[in-house]
C-alpha cells in the first residue's frame, strides 16, 4: 500500500553550482584510500600491511566491535601506506591501483534463490555490508538484527544534491537485483520513496517487491529519518535499515557479476566549480584529478558530501564511502564591517531580516562564515520550522546537553540522526553546533543501552 506524505516544514536552500546532467568519465585516479573515519563508531582492526597485494573486494580491516563487518578494497593494487595519527589511530589505508582492475570472485546467483543467511554472508564478505546503515543511532547496521523494515530514499533533497534519478538511469536490472537481495533481509516491507515533483525514473517506479511511497515538500524530505518517522515510525527497540540507490546498485552488481563494484557516480558541485557535472569514479578515489583546472582561485572549502552534512576534506583527499557529492565553496574567513547591520542582499536567511527576501528565486553563493558568534538559546520556534517530525527539537538538544538519557529516550532520540538537524543548525540564531551535539547524544545512548 503506497503512502503519500506531505512534508510542510523545511526549506530548500538555493545555491549556485548545481551539477549539469552530463556524465563525465573521470580520469583514472592514481591513488585510492579508505578512511575509517567515514564509518562512525567503528574501531578498525587491520587485515593488511604495507606492500600487500589486494584485489577489489579484499578485506582491508574489520570492526573490532563486530568482526563480521569487513571493509574491503575498492580497487586492486598494492597497499601503499597505512596513515596513522595520534595514538596510532588509523586515519587511512592508501592503495596504489593497478592499471587493470582485478576482482575477488564472489558467488554469482539470483538472490531470489538464496537464503537470508547466504545473502547476509555474501554482503559481509564482499564489503557491501557497510552500505546498509541503521536507525536508531545512524551507524552501520548490525547483521545480527532483524529490521522491521528497510528504507531507500530515491531522492536527495539537500542543497546542490545530485539527482538520484539521473544516477540510476538505465540500470534498472541491476537495481532490481539489489532490491531482491535486500528484500530477503527483512520480514517487513522495503520502502522506496520518491519525490512527487521530480520525475521519478522508471528504475524506481517499475521496481518490484517494494512499497513505492510518494513524498512531497522541501528539504529535509529526502532524509530517510524523516521518511521513517512519517511512514513507519519507530519506538524504543525497533530497528530500521537504510541505504541509498547507489548502495542498492553495488549490491545488485555483487549478485549479477559476483564482484565488489566500488564504482560510483559523484556530482561535483558548488559555486567555486567552473563546470559542475557528474563524474564516473569510485569511492575512495583521489579527487585531485577531478578538481584540476576546474575550480576557481582563492581560499576554498572542499566538502565530501553536501554543504549541510558533508565532511570537510583537503584537496588531496578522497571520495568518502557514503558520499556521492563533492562540494567546493568559498571560505568565509574575512571579517565583515558592520555585517550585522548591512542590508544583506547576498545573505540567505530563514528569517526575513535580510533584504534578500526581495529576491526569493535568486541562487546564492554562500561562504563558510558563521555569520555571528555562539550564544545561549534565545530565539524559539526556529528549529520547529525546519524540523518535520513530531518531536521537540530544542528540548531534545537540551536533554542531550545535560546528558539525561531517560529524557532523551522520552523525547525521541531513537528516531533522529544528526543530518535531520542540519537545517536547524543552519538557521540557528545562537550558532549552536546541533549536529555534533545530537551525535554525542546518540553515542551516549548507544553506549549505555547496548
Amino acid at each position, binding site marked *: 500500500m503506497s503512502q503519500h506524505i506531505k512534508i510542510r516544514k523545511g526549506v530548500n536552500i538555493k*545555491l549556485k553550482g548545481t551539477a549539469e546532467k552530463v556524465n563525465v568519465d573521470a580520469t583514472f585516479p592514481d591513488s585510492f584510500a579508505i578512511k575509517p573515519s567515514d564509518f562512525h563508531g567503528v574501531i578498525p582492526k587491520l587485515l593488511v600491511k604495507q606492500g600487500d597485494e589486494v584485489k577489489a573486494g579484499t578485506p582491508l580491516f574489520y570492526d573490532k566491535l563486530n568482526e563480521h563487518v569487513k571493509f574491503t578494497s575498492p580497487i586492486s593494487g598494492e597497499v601503499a601506506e597505512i596513515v596513522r595519527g595520534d595514538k596510532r589511530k588509523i586515519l587511512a589505508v592508501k592503495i596504489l591501483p593497478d592499471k587493470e582492475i582485478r576482482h575477488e570472485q564472489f558467488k554469482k546467483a539470483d538472490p531470489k534463490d538464496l537464503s537470508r543467511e547466504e545473502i547476509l554472508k555474501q554482503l559481509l564478505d564482499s564489503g557491501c555490508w557497510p552500505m546498509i546503515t541503521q536507525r536508531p543511532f545512524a551507524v552501520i547496521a548490525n547483521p545480527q538484527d532483524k529490521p522491521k523494515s528497510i528504507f531507500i530514499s530515491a531522492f536527495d533533497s539537500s*542543497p546542490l544534491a545530485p539527482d538520484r534519478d539521473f544516477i540510476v538511469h538505465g540500470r534498472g536490472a541491476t537495481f532490481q537485483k539489489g532490491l531482491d537481495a535486500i528484500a530477503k533481509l527483512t520480514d517487513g516491507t522495503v520502502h522506496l520513496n520518491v519525490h512527487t515533483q521530480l520525475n521519478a525514473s522508471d528504475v524506481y517506479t517499475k521496481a518490484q517487491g517494494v512499497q513505492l511511497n510518494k513524498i512531497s515538500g522541501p528539504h529535509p524530505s529526502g532524509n530517510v529519518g524523516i521518511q521513517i518517522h512519517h511512514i513507519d*515510525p519507530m*519506538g524504543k*527497540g*525497533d530497528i530500521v535499515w537504510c541505504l541509498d540507490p547507489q548502495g542498492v546498485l553495488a549490491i545488485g552488481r555483487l549478485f549479477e557479476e559476483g564482484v565488489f563494484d566500488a564504482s560510483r557516480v559523484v556530482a561535483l558541485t558548488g559555486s567555486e566549480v567552473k563546470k559542475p557535472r557528474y563524474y564516473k569514479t569510485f569511492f575512495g578515489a583521489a579527487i585531485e584529478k577531478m578538481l584540476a583546472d576546474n575550480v576557481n582561485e582563492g581560499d576554498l572549502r572542499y*566538502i565530501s558530501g553536501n554543504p*549541510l*552534512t*558533508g565532511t*570537510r576534506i583537503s584537496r588531496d583527499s578522497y571520495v568518502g564511502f557514503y558520499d556521492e557529492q563533492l*562540494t567546493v*565553496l568559498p*571560505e*568565509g*574567513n*574575512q*571579517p*565583515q*564591517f*558592520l*555585517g*550585522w*547591520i548591512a542590508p*544583506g542582499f547576498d545573505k*540567505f*536567511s*530563514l*528569517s526575513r*531580516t*535580510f533584504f*534578500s527576501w526581495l529576491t526569493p528565486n535568486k541562487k546564492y553563493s554562500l561562504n*563558510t*562564515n*558563521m*555569520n*555571528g*558568534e555562539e*550564544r*545561549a*538559546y*534565545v*530565539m*524559539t*520556534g526556529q528549529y520547529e520550522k525546519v524540523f518535520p517530525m*513530531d518531536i*521537540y527539537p*530544542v*528540548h531534545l538538544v537540551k536533554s542531550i546537553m545535560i546528558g539525561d538519557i531517560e529524557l532523551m529516550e*522520552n*523525547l525521541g532520540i531513537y528516531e533522529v540522526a544528526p543530518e535531520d538537524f542540519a537545517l536547524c*543548525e*543552519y*538557521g*540557528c*540564531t*545562537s550558532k549552536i*553546533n*546541533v*549536529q555534533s551535539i545530537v551525535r554525542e547524544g546518540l553515542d551516549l545512548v548507544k553506549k549505555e543501552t547496548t
Partner: protein
Amino acid sequence: MKLFRNLLDSVKPNFEEGGKLEKFFPAFDAFETFLFVPGHSAHEGAHIRDGIDLKRTMITVVLAMVPCLLFGIWNTGHQHFLSIGEFMGLGEGFMDKFLFGSMRVLPIVIISYVAGLTVEFIFAIIRKESVNEGFLVSGMLIPLVMPAEVPLWMVAVATVFAVLIGKEVFGGTGMNILNPALTARAFLFFAYPTMMSGNKVWISTTAETTPVDAFTGETLLAQAINTPSGFTDAAGQSYGGASGDMMASFIGYIPGSVGETSALACLIGAAILLYTGIGSWRIMLSMLLGGLSMAWLFNLWGANPFMQVDPIQQIIMGGFMFGMVFMATDPVSASQTNTGKWIYGFFAGFLGIMIRVFNPAYPEGIMMAILFMNVMAPLIDHYVVQANVNKRLKRVSVAS
C-alpha cells in the same frame, strides 16, 4: 573601515592572553564584534550558516520599536503643551513638541542603556564570556514603559535591578525567567508607587508653566473607572464620543507611558516583527483573542463602568498593545513550544484585562499578567512536552 580595523588590531594585543588588559577581553570583544562580524568559519557541522545572528535579531526588534519611540517623543511634548494650553491642535507646533519630548525622553533612553550595559559588561568580564546582545532590546523597552516624568535616578536603579535580579542571577541572557524590561517597571511600580501611577506623572509639567484650569493628568484607564467612554484629554476637553475616544487611543495622543500610547505605532512594530519572523504571531494573536474575550465577557456582565468599556477600546488603551507586541513575545521568558505559546498568550491577554478591571489599584494589569505568565510558561511547556512524550510511549506499547 580600514581605519577601524587598524585601530582594533593595534590595541588587540593588550587584551589577548598575557596582555596587560587581558581581563577586559570581553569588553574589547564586544566592540570588535560590534564593528566587524568576525571571520570565523564553520569548523564542524553545516558548512554554510544563516546570515542571522543575535545582533541582527536584536537590532530588528529595536527598529520595530522606533515608531513607538518617535511617537512617544512627540506625544510627550504634545501632552505637555496641552496641559498648559498651548498648541492645542494635533498638527500645531510639531517641532516644539518634538524638541520638548526629546529633552524628556532621550535622557531616559541614555540612562537606561548606560546603566544596563555597565552591569552587562561587568558580568561578562567576571564570567569571562562574550557580552550578550539581549540588553540592546531591554535598554530600549525600559524607557518606553516609563512615565515621562520619572526621575532619572529611578530609571538607573530600576534598570540595574532588572539586569541583576531579573537576568544575571539566573545566568544571563537566555536563562532568565522574567522579562527584564517588565521587571524594571514592576520594581518601580512597587518600590515607588507614587511615581508610577496616579495623575501627576504621565504628563510632563514644569515649574515655570501653569496648567490650564481644567487640567487633568489622568490616563484613560483611570477615567474608565467612572465612565466607559467619553474620555477627556489633559486640557479637560472631550475626545468626542466613542469613536473619538477610539481614534485618540488608536493614534495615541493620550496620556500614558512614553512609548505605549499609540496602538498604531505598536501595530507598525508588530508588522516588522511578524514579517521578519522575529516575533511570534501565535503569541500576539492569542493574546489579542484573550484580551478581547475577557473584555467581551465583562461587557455581558456590565456591573460597573469599567466593565462596559468596548472590547476594542480596552485593547487599544493602556499598555495592552505594547505588551502584546514587545513584552509577551520575548522568546526567552515566553513559552517555547508552539502549543504553549497559544495558551501563554491567551491567558496573558485574558488575565491582563481582568486585573485591569477588577483591581483599579493596578490599572496596568497587562504588566502583572505578562509577568505572571512568564512564571507559568515553563509549567505550560512541561505539560505540552509531556503530552508529546506520552504519545510516543503509547506507540511503543502498540508496537510490542
